[in-house]
């Protein structure tokens, strides 16, 4: 039984379909990153999960229990928001205590003056304070407990927001781009911390981000969502090396994968010197050839490979990105090189562009991945 199951969730706003039947399972203790470009429906999905919004159709199960009749507060799902959503008028400590106070104190015990006179509330409040301190210790924010959100930095607010979500030991943890308001250095640091916290707490987590690097580096499994469809759910290596759809291949990887139009003919795909035999039956016609930039090499002499020209070079320290254009077809091709390979290259020069045919992926006209016969490659490594 999965910790969290989504079955065919559909949602549309005013005729615009936001979610087209999303199904997803999160196993116990798993960290799943839900990644996709802005507006792909990932935040909507998270809000529906949390009970803040309703799906048009589909089911949500938490630990096998149907969540559709359960209100947001009773789902025991915690959420960290992009804006942190801390209560501005409360100190960090009071912010963290709110979910506990709402859960443990009765309605009358929460009343401002009368509440403090009722029996039993003192013990509960002591317990809450103890739990808040413990959580603050875990996140190293003990010294911030008396400060208000306005007096804290972005990173500190983010930790307080995490503490407020974790303090009630939720059964599911939802995070909506919690790192996107931090500066770049802090973000990389915070990534490691969140993964570490997840490992310690073991709460199944659904982490929404638009940053593919964040998703690949943090998650056990990555769910790629584009245009309201969940295109692929797999381990980060599989998502990168073996994408199921052209949109997944395009979205994941920096710089972006090279997509070159090619022709399928009698079960074979041909582009310049590349010939690939397809395992699946495909009607003759246009298909797409995908090759990651690291599998493109440049020959400065121009004696081998396809004739092309370097339009722009980007030096990034450990690597050099060469933006090239093929003379024959006019397609743009990006090559990711190590600096010593790029030593003799200058922008504007003519080069030979070598593509690693055995690393090429073929996508059908609708974007679906087409498998290639492993033994069918008769071509040399680089063409």
């Amino acid at each position: 039984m999965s910790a969290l199951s989504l079955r065919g969730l559909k949602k549309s706003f005013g005729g615009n379909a936001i979610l087209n039947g999303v199904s997803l399972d999160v196993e116990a203790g798993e960290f799943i990153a839900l990644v996709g470009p802005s507006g792909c429906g990932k935040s909507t999905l998270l809000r529906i999960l949390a009970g803040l919004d309703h799906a048009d159709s589909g089911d949500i199960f938490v630990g096998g229990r149907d969540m559709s009749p359960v209100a947001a507060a009773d789902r025991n799902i915690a959420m960290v928001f992009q804006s942190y959503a801390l209560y501005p008028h409360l100190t960090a400590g009071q912010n963290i205590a709110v979910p506990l106070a709402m859960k443990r104190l009765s309605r009358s015990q929460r009343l401002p003056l009368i509440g403090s006179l009722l029996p039993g509330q003192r013990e509960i409040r002591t317990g809450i304070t103890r739990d808040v301190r413990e959580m603050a210790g875990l996140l190293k924010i003990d010294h911030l407990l008396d400060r208000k959100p306005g007096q804290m930095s972005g990173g500190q607010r983010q930790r307080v927001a995490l503490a407020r979500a974790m303090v009630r030991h939720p059964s599911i943890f939802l995070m909506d781009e919690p790192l996107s308001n931090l500066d770049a250095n802090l973000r990389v640091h915070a990534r490691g911390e969140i993964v570490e916290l997840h490992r310690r707490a073991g709460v199944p987590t659904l982490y929404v981000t638009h940053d593919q690097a964040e998703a690949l580096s943090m998650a056990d499994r990555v769910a790629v969502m584009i245009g309201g469809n969940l295109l692929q759910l797999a381990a980060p290596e599989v998502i990168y090396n073996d994408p199921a759809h052209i949109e997944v291949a395009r979205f994941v990887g920096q710089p972006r994968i090279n997509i070159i139009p090619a022709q399928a003919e009698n079960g074979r795909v041909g582009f310049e010197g590349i010939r690939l035999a397809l395992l699946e039956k495909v009607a003759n016609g246009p298909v797409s050839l995908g090759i990651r930039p690291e599998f493109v090499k440049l020959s400065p002499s121009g004696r081998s490979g396809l004739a092309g020209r370097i339009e722009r070079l980007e030096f990034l320290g450990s690597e050099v990105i060469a933006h090239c254009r093929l003379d024959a077809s006019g397609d743009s091709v990006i090559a990711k090189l190590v600096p010593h390979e790029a030593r003799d290259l200058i922008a504007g020069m003519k080069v030979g562009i070598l593509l690693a045919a055995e690393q090429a992926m073929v996508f059908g006209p609708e974007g679906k991945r087409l498998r290639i016969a492993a033994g069918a490659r008769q071509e040399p490594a680089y063409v």
Partner: protein
Amino acid sequence: MSSTAIPVGRIIRFALLSLGALMILAPYIFMISTAGKTQSDIFTSSLALIPQHFYFAENFAKAFAKVPMATLLWNGVVVCGLIFFFQVVVAIPCAYAMAKLKFRAARLMMVLVMLGLLVPIHATALPLYVAFDRMSLLNSYTSLVAPFTISVFAIFMFLQFFRAMPDDLLHAARLDGMSELGIVARVIVPNAWPAVTAFAIFSVVAHWNDLYWPLIVVSKQAYATPPLGLMYFRAAEAGDDYGALMAATLIITLPLVAAFLLAQKRFVEGITMTGLKG
């Protein structure tokens, strides 16, 4: 050339602004001046700002003696306080619902609020008067307060303010286990002080100075608000005693000025309150 042109321009601008300020302040200066004059001073043909004989103490004593000043001020405080209290209690949940909750009648309610903004109290004064008369509620705090407890202006103002509040904050509150009323009490109200303070200035000033409605529903001194009290004052035997009248006017103006100066500080504090966004 240009080095002299700038100061000249500045002098002209400064002079114009001073003139404008003087025109606005003139009645008040004249009020303070008259409050210190004897009857004969006031009715001389020459216009002097400084009284010939300082008669402040006598005029103030007369003002307190001729009308029940303490009752007037107390009535003013009670009426303004009750009106403001009920306006806020009604308008905050209403504005919250209209700003942040989705329901079918939201558009219709918005239209009604806009229409409500267009209807002045004078249009409904007569039916209200008849109704209060039938209920034998003339000459009571109820008749002074009740017509103003639902302020569409307050709803409109809070609505604008609440719309700017981040939805995530409300989502977080719902996930933390708060009911909608709990959100209003624990999240909206503590963060709405800038709007409440700003509205307080409008509401209290308008109702402290209102003469029209108290004149209609109140005929007994026991329920008279300060401006109405001034009317009785003039109609009483002090009829021609402008010195005492101005002293009384000064007395009922001062609490508002003091309250405004105090609220101004809170107001500025409220506006600088931040911390919602990262």
